[in-house]
């Protein structure tokens, strides 16, 4: 089947089998391997992307369902050679170790902040933890992921140069 999906601002056409998952279209057909696959039960969230502005697990969307949609992947987050503030926040707060869950975490977190802004709510630690429930990480114990998202939500990004200034614990 023929699908057209706008991926990171560029319209892409592809022929796919009806059973092709969106994550496989991205990874195998379009070569966008930044979106990772960590499970087969929609549990881990490593494949999280933005579909028409909402965060979704791309292993649970058929490629044909995305026909005509706007998709943003991790490859579309940094622009003009600059990391997205959420990416910067993860770096400054040591929010990643092996990096495998990281693209999904960044995509889920940016959507979480956007939703909070749209709702006019303020994210606290509990809300960030609850909001990331669908994304698993095995390295960080989530401590610094939560710190990263809170730092980004509060605009506390870009203060660190190459040496982290933050001291320790989550607020």
């Amino acid at each position, binding site marked *: 089947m023929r699908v057209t999906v706008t991926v990171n601002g560029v319209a892409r056409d592809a022929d796919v*089998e009806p059973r092709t998952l969106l994550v496989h279209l991205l990874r195998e057909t379009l070569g966008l*391997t930044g979106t990772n696959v*960590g499970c087969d*039960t929609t549990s881990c969230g490593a494949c999280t992307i933005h579909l028409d502005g909402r965060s979704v697990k791309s292993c649970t969307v058929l490629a044909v369902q995305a026909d005509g949609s706007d998709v943003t992947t991790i490859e579309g987050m940094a622009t003009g050679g600059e*990391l997205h503030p959420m990416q910067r926040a993860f770096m400054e707060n040591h929010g*990643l170790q092996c990096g495998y869950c*990281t693209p999904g975490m960044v995509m889920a977190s940016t959507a979480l902040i956007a939703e909070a802004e749209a709702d006019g709510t303020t994210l606290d630690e509990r809300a960030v933890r609850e909001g990331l429930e669908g994304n698993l990480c095995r390295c960080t114990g989530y401590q610094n992921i939560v710190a990263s998202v809170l730092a980004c939500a509060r605009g506390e990004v870009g203060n660190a140069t190459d*040496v982290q200034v933050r001291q320790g*614990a989550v607020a």
Partner: protein
Amino acid sequence: MSTTDVIGSRRLRREDPALLTGEGRYTDDLPIPGALHMALVRSPFAHARITAIDTTEAAAAPGVRAVYTAADLEHLWANPMPCAWPVTDDMRNPAHYPLAKDKVAYVGDAVALVLAESNAAARDAVELVDVDYDPLEAVIDLEDALSDRVVIHEDLGTNVSYRWDLELDEDAVQAAFDGAAHTVSGRFVQQRLLPMAMEPRAVAAVPAPFGGGVTLYSATQVPHILKVMAAVTTGISEADIRVVAPSVGGGFGSKLNVYAEELLALALANERKEPVRWVEERGENAQATIHGRGQIQEIDLAADADGKVTGVRVRLIGDMGAYLQLVTPGIPLLGAFLYCGVYDVPAFSFTCTSVFTTMTPTDAYRGAGRPEATYAIERAMDLLAAEVGVDPAEIRRRNYITKDKFPYTAVTGLEYDSGDHEGAAAIALDLAGYEALRSEQAERRAAGGTKHLGIGMSSYFEMCGLAPSRVLASLNYSAGGWESATVRMLPTGKVEVVSGATPHGQGHETSWSMIVAERLGVSPDDVEVLHSDTAISPHGMDTYGSRSLPVGGVAIAMACDRVIDKARQIAAHQLEAAAGDLELSGGVFRVKGSPDKEMPLAAVAFEAFTAHDLPDDLEPTLEAQVTYDPPNFSWPFGTHVCVVEVDEETGAVEVRDYVAVDDCGTQINPMIVEGQVHGGIVQGLAQALFEEAVFDADGNPQAASLAEYLVPAAPDVPSLRLGHSVTPSPTNSLGVKGVGEAGTIGAASTVINAIVDALSHLGVTEMRMPASPLHVWEAIQAARGTGGEGLVAEIATDTAGADRDAPSDTLSPQTQPGGGA
């Protein structure tokens, strides 16, 4: 920042931008044109004879290029799958090949494989392979395995793989128990765990048929070990195998192995002269990637009237699973030396019997034997505190090896390098507000209620480094414990570092660049770090056992020192000064007393490159290679404190606070250290509260996906509060000890101690892991004598619990208040 205070700074990781943008490449991300996709046919039975395999329909399916069974591939193997740790001379090790031929011995055991033009075609064809099985009885209970009721590997005649005793002074142990004022005993079950690295395993084997051998890309922690073992197993010349570990998405020990899929892809790519790739599905990961833990522990403590421990006796049954993988039999031994914990214990005996079961092989999982040992001694210390009638913190204070006793030679003969347990415990208890918590607990108990406050603590040693080689030899480990490093000054003054340590998320590149920057006086940005490719880094022992820094990092520092030594001779020649009169500071050699005479290291590097004017006896170029074999293990230590609220009515446990003080010696990058501790604690906490690889009585895994196996998510775990102390190791010039497993080693016992403490006034003295609401509720009912524990057998059959009708922590009668269970 000057270059001399790089070590100890919170430098951001150079690895991160690539990983944050999708630029990082994991094995399954690599474009491999023309690769065939491999998929495996796996046994749905835990124990069965294979009576027939019909591959006809699969072979004819669209896109399928070949289907193989074990019989088709026998010519590819020079040796069975490797086990590098024959712990005893008479250890039984069933020959084990990448595909099972006559029998399967666990659910997930591979019996056939498909090569196809796409992953989907290969997976579809797997469903068309028709295998006839004649099912046999499963063996999932360690004591059942020990009875040889069903012998899994008939040619061995028994399920016992080995019995290993730490042969010390048995008379002294007996005397300690004979003369004891107090004794306590505990029986603990270390349930099987699934490592669940977020990146499943993946392999791609790419041949260069006209003269380049085969390149094996693998999501592995151990490319160097894999290369050697792959050569031994396949008979392909070691010179024709290159192994590359691209970005690796976590390992936790599960990628410290040599797996069937790696060998199959390599051998088939080599034979067919076309690339073969494979990526593991999560469900396969739960079955075919090694499991962790799997032990039944019995521990007895003898103590004098003051609660000073006078003897420790340990009996272990180890669950090997169906076969011995790379270091399967050695895992209980890694823990053997830690059952005396951080205490000054004069008499110790340890015996371990390890058995085969019809479940996935076990092997190293974060901590590998040491969390298990720490759990047993730290639970037992709490039992002793209750027996003696003193606070758990006090019983530990009375028994810690005091700071002035280091270096301390333990009863096992090992020497502990340095430590300050009282100091670490004091920081942790203060940070947690221990005294106030005890007051709150007393007030709340007096007031009554159904939510109970519990405070638990554990102190631990992490025996790490996994070196020196001669000690590993005494344990029959087949490899060395050294690590290799090369430091090379480039003509432009930049520095190239080649390390044999192989990162999979730890940030080695950042840490190594910091060590070199500090040592040589260059910017960390000017240090390139190369690793994880046997063509670039030919020597290495890889990354496991918290060894990268105390072995590999120290090797880098030593190589820097040798570079400086040579550079000093060149600079002295150029400056017409005596080498002994030169000082290196900030990357510049200066002549003492003649401040105008100086030569930057970068200029020395260029002189070494051109070789136009070197001292007569000096070779051109400026580089040094060091292979470092440490004189001792390193001994990080610490104390953790956990505060829980346990709901008596629902069994729900809420972790209210978690405080950890981990002393890993000198910290190269405290940000990275904290990250390691955070992740480690949550993995240990997950064993205590959530995770268990449950099997039913027929050996079928009941938690074989991330939907069923409870890897905690962010809302499931607390925010952690870290303190630290710094007690440098005296055995290496950096003073470092290693930190990768520390958090995990201390955590599970801390959490369980807190839960038992919360319920102790209800008579609870035991808690089966994971302390799920069901298990907690059952323990409360059991303490009340209402028999709630019987529900376990009805609801879930537990592999680890040898006695299904009782919670796993059953205690011997002398410690039971009122004859509880």
